[in-house]
């Protein structure tokens, strides 16, 4: 297998993995709500990946999405390090939701919020955050 082909297959696998992770059923255990439970007053979903210092996905990391320390949704990442939580009301400013991640043997390094381009259609449907962990 040539190096180029190997790189292509590798990229394809990563792409498929990411695409699979975007499907609701592929989330680590789903998000606990049936599709019909998405109410009209619900705000954007918060999704993203947990990665280690080398950029590798961290599976089964605990991810918390907190609103002003009073209300927190907690989930875990799947095999691709992906997570998604939803259920915050739309009158909550997405910038007030703080994402943190943790896993035994790791320490949280930083989070990176990926804001959609200004040209993106409104209303905002999802907010992406990457959470970085460093192995202790």
């Amino acid at each position: 297998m040539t190096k180029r082909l190997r790189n292509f297959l590798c990229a394809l696998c990563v792409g498929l993995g990411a695409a699979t992770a975007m499907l609701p059923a592929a989330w680590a255990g789903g998000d606990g709500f049936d599709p019909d439970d998405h109410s009209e007053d619900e705000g954007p979903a918060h999704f993203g990946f947990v990665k280690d210092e080398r950029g590798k996905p961290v599976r089964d990391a605990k991810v918390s999405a907190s609103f002003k320390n009073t209300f927190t949704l907690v989930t875990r990442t799947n095999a691709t390090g992906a997570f998604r939580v939803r259920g915050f009301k739309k009158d909550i400013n997405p910038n007030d939701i703080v994402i943190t991640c943790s896993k035994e043997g790791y320490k949280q390094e930083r989070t990176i919020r990926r804001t959609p381009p200004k040209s993106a259609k409104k209303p905002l449907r999802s907010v992406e955050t990457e959470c970085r962990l460093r192995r202790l």
Partner: protein
Amino acid sequence: MPFAAAVTAFVLLGLLVLGDAMAQTPPILRYGQAASAAKTMFSIPIVVAQREGLFEREGLDFRVVIPIPGGADRMIDALHDDTVDITHVATTFLVRAALAGSDAVAIAAEFNNPIYSLIAKPDITRIVDLKGKVVGMADPGTSISISMRKLFVQHGLRESDVRFKHVEGTSTRLNCMRRSDCIAAPLGQPHDLLALSEGYRLLALSTDVVPEFVYTVTAVRRSWAAAHQDTLVRYVRALSAAFGVIRDPRKRGVVIKAITDTTGVSAAIAERTLALYFEPERKVLPQKGEIDLKGFAQVIAFMGEAGHLKGPLPAPERFVELQYLKRAGVMP
């Protein structure tokens, strides 16, 4: 020398100030709530306590944590994996977890004698009409399912006569009927009243067939509780005060607002829900969070009847720790 003394004094002063600040930092208490309960009446005592500042009054930094995915059967797991410190949980799940080795115990009652309405599509007029139909149902081990099966038997239906579809959460079961994926389902408040306002039909109430029992409780691991006794006493005191607010006619507006904001129903349906609970008193809510051991034993009896417990039934005391209710002045 004077310089060294000054530095020492400065450090000591700093430590004192820091210690004082730490002593005044309110303890964080992470309270687990199932996603299926978050938008229902079952969250109202906590919502009221938050809105009325009852946790702050007790010096607690109280935080609601909803594990996702968060089936009601996973709330004890959330205690064990350190997602939460205490949790709201249906008594049957607590008993099941404790018998499987968990050291979780109930420290206060949150809901007793739930009123589950068996609601059906408008063309279904009797329970017997459900023969061969799909009925949305909670986990088979819950008191909801147990009470519904009793209703079916009382009306001449065997379990095998009905096709059960596992749907957790009252609002989700209502949506199951709206989609016509279910013909009937047990609904709690306020979604049952909402369904009736949409033309659905009430077939029966769970309270027609089951005696009084303890439905949901606040649970904690004994190991965590031993190290946080004062925090738990404060929590119980705040929860107890919330029940007082809910029953206080002068606070009716506050409670109605909490229900409408939390569940999304109209004020009229919120008022009807409270009327259903309190006019006359149907003992749906404890007076102050007290745990009725007889009602707890009834849950264990349900589980035995349903075949979920084998052998001699355990005593309720095994699953309950009353010291926090006593120290909070709720129980003698």
